[in-house]
């Protein structure tokens, strides 16, 4: 029975003619049945056509696994047409996970050694697309032989196949390294390109290979120079740039070879300058080469002038009308902003303009970059720009923008009032998107700025009166009104227009907040407590307040109910204590996880107001010395801050489990000190739920014959960090590998600044007292990034 099978194109036509998905499925199922039958009957003449049809339906998403064996048969056939489709089928249907894939190894071997050039090409292509590690091991020598084949067509494919083989089986590097020297002399662009790719792979996998290939840097420089000076070549030029593919690849290899190596970097300096200044930038091809050049300049040990040139090129890219170019510029500048900060600063105005980009992937990068560029001298201007952006930016960027502004404000605020104003503006514009600790931060800030209490409470009152929907704002405002309600009613404050507020208005506003369906339970809590506090701040009688408090005694929300009942009791049975309990709060210590101070504060205050702050750090003064060493005169050292955790803080310690840091991605330990058998090593943990927190455990071990006694370890970190040393496990490190001494350091790094750590050790060993001060080098970036 010989039913002529459909030609491939006819099948495609029929499938496309189907009007519904169901119809299409029917056509395909029918055809697949024929194809299966044909495979079973073993029709060698039409096999290639049947497989081609199968490959088409496979692309549409239909199963085609029954064609796998047919690929094998076609590859083994002597006919070129068969092989072509067979190899294509192998690349599409066979992969490492199926055992069948190994069966083509033999065919490939035969084709590589005995096939015509075209056939060798097919085999190499397939091998480099889907060749598994075992196949690569088996066929490595065949491919190596082909590197010497006279035909450039085959050689170029063999070189790239070698690249794939090394990726799969790095040990094969030993086979493919030696031919590289010879291959670099090739004039054929394809072979040269493949060779450079091969050398890159070798260097990335083996430091020995990297060292070996550094000696070809002059040769690479020469090749690139020749490319640049060659005139227009129809064959290889794109938009007036000679073979940009090859240029880019050479530049990449130069980057790898020049990294951390002065000599190589110097050899390429002139060339890089030449490429940077002479490449035509009117079209994408030229810009692609220029971009690669910039990346190379910035990654190697280039001359300072060249670096500035590179950053300026990126700055020019920012002004390019092509948004793709602007995108790569923003991405690259972001990577540079830490290391070449002042160079990038020069382009700040352009970066800020990029905030207006309609494409969110660009504006997001512009935002990140802008935030990274804020410093103490431009903070006012930048915040202004960023606030403007916050008002109109797309929703997915709001949270980042808001927290970025708040963070920048915290670091660089020129005055407290400006700081409060800024936070206020952010809360009003994007209150729903700020992080949870913004409320605590603002209350702490206001609390600490006594001279601004009147100003703050007035501004917050006005903001609240306008809008009670933004929860963080409402919470801060409620707290403030509660604390400083008396100042609100006083009437005069130089900083803003006079505002006449009546007691009844204040109470009415807080009641509105309490009753509003927009208010979260936490917000209601703030409002209720604020009302309660006002009972001592306001002059009128407290009937209204008492009424509200007693109503909420039967509120469904348990938290609110509890407060209301307690406050009610305060009115009825403990009225004589009310004033003392509701006094103004002391400054809350910042640092550590923020706790909702409200609920606990009002009850704890009475007890703790008497306790004078007791410093837990007896070595406070010596710590300041270390801080000096690290950062020069530090503002924090003079600021009168109680080191003792205050009411909120004590609870933080109770809630903490100081000796059991939660598991996080392991950061490698670091050995930092060794002297006569005493070793100090650091282990790091970053709890996933508090990314700004770093826990360092200092472990001291002693392998010497004598005990180490009176051991004290102190630490210092840069100004923007907060450090807490907990008590050590002991002050003796016993000899002969006895029980090590450990001490926990808690470091808060809200700005994700690079970590620096200085340690000071004093101890007695072998009858001598020792003092060591040193900075810890090689801190892994995972500790602060």
């Amino acid at each position, binding site marked *: 029975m010989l039913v002529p099978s459909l030609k491939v*194109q006819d099948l*495609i*036509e029929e499938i*496309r003619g189907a009007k519904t998905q169901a119809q299409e499925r029917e056509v395909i199922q029918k055809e697949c049945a024929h194809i299966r039958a044909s495979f079973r009957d073993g029709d060698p*003449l039409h096999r290639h056509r049947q497989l*081609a049809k199968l*490959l*088409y339906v496979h*692309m*549409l*998403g239909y199963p085609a696994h029954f064609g796998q064996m047919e690929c094998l048969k076609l590859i083994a056939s002597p*006919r*070129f*047409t068969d092989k*072509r*489709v067979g190899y*294509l089928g192998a690349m*599409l249907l066979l*992969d490492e*996970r199926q055992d069948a894939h190994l069966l083509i190894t033999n065919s490939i071997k035969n084709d590589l050694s005995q096939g015509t050039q*075209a056939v060798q*090409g097919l085999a*190499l*292509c397939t091998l480099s*697309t*889907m060749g598994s590690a075992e196949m690569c091991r088996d066929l490595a020598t065949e491919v190596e032989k082909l590197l010497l084949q006279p035909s450039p*067509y085959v050689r*170029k494919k063999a070189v*790239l*196949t070698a*690249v*794939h083989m090394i990726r799969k089986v790095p040990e094969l590097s030993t086979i493919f390294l030696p031919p590289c020297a010879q291959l670099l002399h090739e004039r054929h*662009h*394809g072979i040269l*390109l*493949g060779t450079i790719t091969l050398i890159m792979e070798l260097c990335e996998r083996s430091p020995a290979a990297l060292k070996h290939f550094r000696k070809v840097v002059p040769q690479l420089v020469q090749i690139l120079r020749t490319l640049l000076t060659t005139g227009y070549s129809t*064959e*290889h030029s*794109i938009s007036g740039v000679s073979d*940009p*593919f*090859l240029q*880019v690849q050479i530049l*990449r290899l130069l980057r790898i070879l020049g990294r951390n190596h002065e000599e190589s970097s110097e050899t390429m300096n002139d060339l890089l300058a030449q490429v940077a200044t002479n490449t035509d930038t009117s079209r*994408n091809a030229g*810009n*692609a*080469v220029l*971009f*690669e050049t910039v*990346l190379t300049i910035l990654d190697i040990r280039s001359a300072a002038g060249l670096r500035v040139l590179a950053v300026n090129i990126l700055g020019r890219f920012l002004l390019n009308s092509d*948004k*793709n*170019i*602007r*995108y*790569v510029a923003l991405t690259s500048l972001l990577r540079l902003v830490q290391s070449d900060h002042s160079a990038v600063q020069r382009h700040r105005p352009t970066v800020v303009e990029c905030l207006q980009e*309609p*494409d969110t*992937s660009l504006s997001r990068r512009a935002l990140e970059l802008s935030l990274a560029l804020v410093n103490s001298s431009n903070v006012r201007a930048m915040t202004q720009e960023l606030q403007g952006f916050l008002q109109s930016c797309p929703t997915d960027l709001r949270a980042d923008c808001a927290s970025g502004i708040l963070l920048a404000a915290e670091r660089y605020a020129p005055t407290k009032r400006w700081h409060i104003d800024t936070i206020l503006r952010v809360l009003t514009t994007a209150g729903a998107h700020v992080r949870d600790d913004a409320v605590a931060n603002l209350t702490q800030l206001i609390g600490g700025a006594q001279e601004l209490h009147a100003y703050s409470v007035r501004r917050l009152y006005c903001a609240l009166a306008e809008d009670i929907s933004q929860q963080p704002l409402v919470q801060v405002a409620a707290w403030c009104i509660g604390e400083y309600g008396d100042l609100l009613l006083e009437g005069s404050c130089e900083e803003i227009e006079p505002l006449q507020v009546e007691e009844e208005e204040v109470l009415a506003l807080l009641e509105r907040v309490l009753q509003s369906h927009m208010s979260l339970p936490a917000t209601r809590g703030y409002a209720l407590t604020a009302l309660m506090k006002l009972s001592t701040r306001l002059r009128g009688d407290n009937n209204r307040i008492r009424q509200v408090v007693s109503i909420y005694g039967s509120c469904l929300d348990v938290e609110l109910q509890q407060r209301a009942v307690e406050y009610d009791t305060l009115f009825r049975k403990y009225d004589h204590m009310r004033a003392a309990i509701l006094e103004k709060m002391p400054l809350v210590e910042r640092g550590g996880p923020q706790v909702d101070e409200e609920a606990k504060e009002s009850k704890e205050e009475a007890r703790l107001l008497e306790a004078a702050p007791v410093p837990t750090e007896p070595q406070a003064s010596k710590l300041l010395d270390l801080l000096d060493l690290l950062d020069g005169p530090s503002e924090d050292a003079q600021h009168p801050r109680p080191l003792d955790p205050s009411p909120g803080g004590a609870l933080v310690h109770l809630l903490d489990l100081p000796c059991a840091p939660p598991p996080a991605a392991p950061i490698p330990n670091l050995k930092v000190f060794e002297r006569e058998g005493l070793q100090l090593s650091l282990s790091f943990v970053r709890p996933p739920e508090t990314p700004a927190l770093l826990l360092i455990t200092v472990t001291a071990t002693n392998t010497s014959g004598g005990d180490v006694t009176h051991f004290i370890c102190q630490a210092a970190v840069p100004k923007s960090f907060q450090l807490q040393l907990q008590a050590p496990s002991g002050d003796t490190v016993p000899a002969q590998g006895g029980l090590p001494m450990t001490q926990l350091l808690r470091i808060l790094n809200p700005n994700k600044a690079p970590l620096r750590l200085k340690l000071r050790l004093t101890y007695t060993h072998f009858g001598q007292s020792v003092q060591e001060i040193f900075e810890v080098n090689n801190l892994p970036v995972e500790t602060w990034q």
Partner: protein
Amino acid sequence: MQFMLLFSRQGKLRLQKWYVPLSDKEKKKITRELVQTVLARKPKMCSFLEWRDLKIVYKRYASLYFCCAIEDQDNELITLEIIHRYVELLDKYFGSVCELDIIFNFEKAYFILDEFLLGGEVQETSKKNVLKAIEQADLLQEVLRRQKVAGPF
């Protein structure tokens, strides 16, 4: 390059070249998600986006999207040139190529790609050489076909 996908405005796959080993299921999932993501982009947006841990470079030519997934250290701008070069090759071969050419001659589209890229890297930077290789292979197939037809019955 990790993979290249060609798909229509309706999300129908026209070519898929994978340079990393993945199961059929994974390939389908990636294709589905990526196609959706790219089709959701507005016309004025840039050609680059970050997706999972890869960089995606895409460009639309008439009714077809050409989409490449490259690694972190790869140069996005040169990838645009790679895509453009492939389109030029198709255009030269088919004479003013359109989507239908690629649908009905999908094997040829693969063969051309395989003469331009190998293992995810550029193997030949001369347009002339790529087209010559395809011509010669086509000729070989044609010769064989004629032999078959003229053979004894």
